[in-house]
């Protein structure tokens, strides 16, 4: 976008200047007003306010004190916050690879069956996605119940003794990973199905003529053709999983011994427990910097080919 004499003059937002001002200003701003006002009050102002407060030791009840970057250094050096981040990464490793693999397998299966069965499968795998985290937590907590719970009855059949699934430091995080996988699988599967159906049929026909088996077709056609979708699911799946906090909030409250305190739950518990805020806001901002940047980047990369007109 040069400013040489030869190029047509452009306004600040990059659109060519017209002889007359844009015609629709009045109606456009009237129609945009509700969204702009709501976003300003409930998203933009809170964001700016959060950035501002992160430099203060702030409390609902007392005067705040400017502390510069101390909240950020405190968060970065806090062993508990670091442990929560590590736990978050561990949680991602427990959920995301399994979700990607399962949804890929289910999607391959669904695209190979008849239409009716395919629809039944798609509806079924999507239903867990619409169930709330609270109801999911309540239901899985019932399954994990120590005495008289379903899971202990099942493992009892193969001679394993009763376990306190969500009460045991070693088992609690995996026990929360299971409902997280269950809830997140539907959306991933349906996105993969759509992507698989977009692969031109002729590719497979050619492969079939060459005598390629399912494994070869998957490895040399399906996966390379789906690489953008897989990348997208990997990144959005990572961002979603590391932010999970409602399941541990309801099922364990973060315990036992912080073993299920995922990063967002760590921050949330500080919001609720601390008199002085600032620290938790700084921690939340740090998370935002990383995750927001990741999602914005992926959105830009993947959309650069197609959307924004």
């Amino acid at each position, binding site marked *: 976008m040069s400013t040489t004499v030869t190029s047509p003059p452009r306004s600040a937002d990059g*659109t060519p200047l017209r002889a007359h001002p844009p015609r629709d200003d009045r109606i456009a701003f009237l*129609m945009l007003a509700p969204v702009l006002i709501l976003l300003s009050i409930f998203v933009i102002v809170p964001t700016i306010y959060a950035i501002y407060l992160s430099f203060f030791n702030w409390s609902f009840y007392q005067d705040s004190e400017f502390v510069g970057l101390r909240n950020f250094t405190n968060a970065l050096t806090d062993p508990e916050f670091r442990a929560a981040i590590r736990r978050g990464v561990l949680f991602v490793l427990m959920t995301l690879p399994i979700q990607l693999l399962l949804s890929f397998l289910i999607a391959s299966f669904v695209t190979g069956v008849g*239409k009716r069965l395919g629809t039944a499968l798609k509806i079924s795998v999507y239903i867990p996605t619409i169930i709330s985290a609270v109801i999911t937590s*309540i239901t899985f907590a019932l399954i994990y119940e120590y005495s008289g719970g379903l899971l202990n009855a099942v493992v009892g059949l193969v001679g394993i003794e009763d376990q306190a699934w969500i009460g045991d430091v070693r088992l609690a995080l995996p026990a929360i990973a299971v409902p997280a996988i269950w809830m997140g699988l539907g959306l991933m599967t349906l996105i993969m199905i759509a992507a698989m159906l977009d692969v031109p049929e002729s590719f497979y026909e050619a492969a079939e003529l060459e005598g390629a088996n399912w494994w070869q077709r998957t490895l040399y056609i399906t996966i390379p053709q789906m690489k953008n*979708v897989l990348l997208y699911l990997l990144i959005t799946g990572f961002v979603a999983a590391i932010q999970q906090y409602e399941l541990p909030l309801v099922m364990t409250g973060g315990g036992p011994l912080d073993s299920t305190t995922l990063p967002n739950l760590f921050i949330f518990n500080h919001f609720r427990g601390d008199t002085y*805020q600032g620290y938790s806001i700084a921690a939340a901002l740090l998370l935002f910097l990383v995750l927001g940047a990741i999602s914005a980047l992926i959105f830009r990369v993947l959309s650069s080919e*197609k959307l924004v007109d």
Partner: protein
Amino acid sequence: MTLTHEPSGSTAVTSPPVVRRRRALTPTRVLAGMVRVAVAVLIIGAALFPLAWMAIAGFKSKQEVVRTPFQFFPEVWRLENYRTILDDPAFVRTLAITGLGAVLFTLLSLTVNSFAAYAFARLDFHFKRALWVVVISTMFIPGMTILLTSFIVVTKLHMLDTLAVLILPGAAAAVHVFFIRQFYLNIPRSLEEAAMIDGCGKFEIFVKLFVPLSKPPFVVVGITSFLVFWNAYVWPVMTITSPDLYQVQQYLATFRSERSSELAMLMAGSTLAAAPVIVLFLIFQRQIIANIKMAGLK
């Protein structure tokens, strides 16, 4: 969320290609067919079992639900838990108030987001690109980052313990603006040009031409909004203390911690609270499934 609209032939996306030749029924083919059915049953079972288990537990007695030795089905299927909780005015009120809030939230979300989507798709105004960037940027701000400061804002606006604090903050959503705008960009301009010759204004064109064509994106945005509201837990817990306005997830979580011996009844209540969204999804499943694609990608 990751929904984007496929302009035409979106049903083709859902239906797997049915190019199958009839072949003779050999034992291997019969076996393959049986394996296929078995795998399908396994997938459907794994997806739906926890919900079935929740509903079954609702039919058990207080003792049966956690009895040792373990008991899969109730000895007698009793409706008692379902009946008792439906007789509890607090539970019925929470369903009603959450439902009312969800409907208002959905209508508001459809209105404001489609207005903005139309403006960005079709109108010509100052600062269009800059405003677009601002709106889209809000999509990347995680809820946790602004949870506390949003709470401070609504406290200062004296919105605590009102229906407004549940409805207003989430109504405008960049994802929805983005999604509806993508759909509008694919509507042929020739349609409006005819209307413009007839002397219709820009707003009239939106109401008379775009809204009637908007069923596909409105179904997706509408259902998503309804679900977001119905399933919300943390925000209601932070902003609602009056039992009159208790939201359904908040009610269930409170029930769980305060009446831990009534597990069977909690399961009945959870089943009843999950039922409306499942029914809603089943009604609109075709449109929803057809529209699930990766944002902005083909």
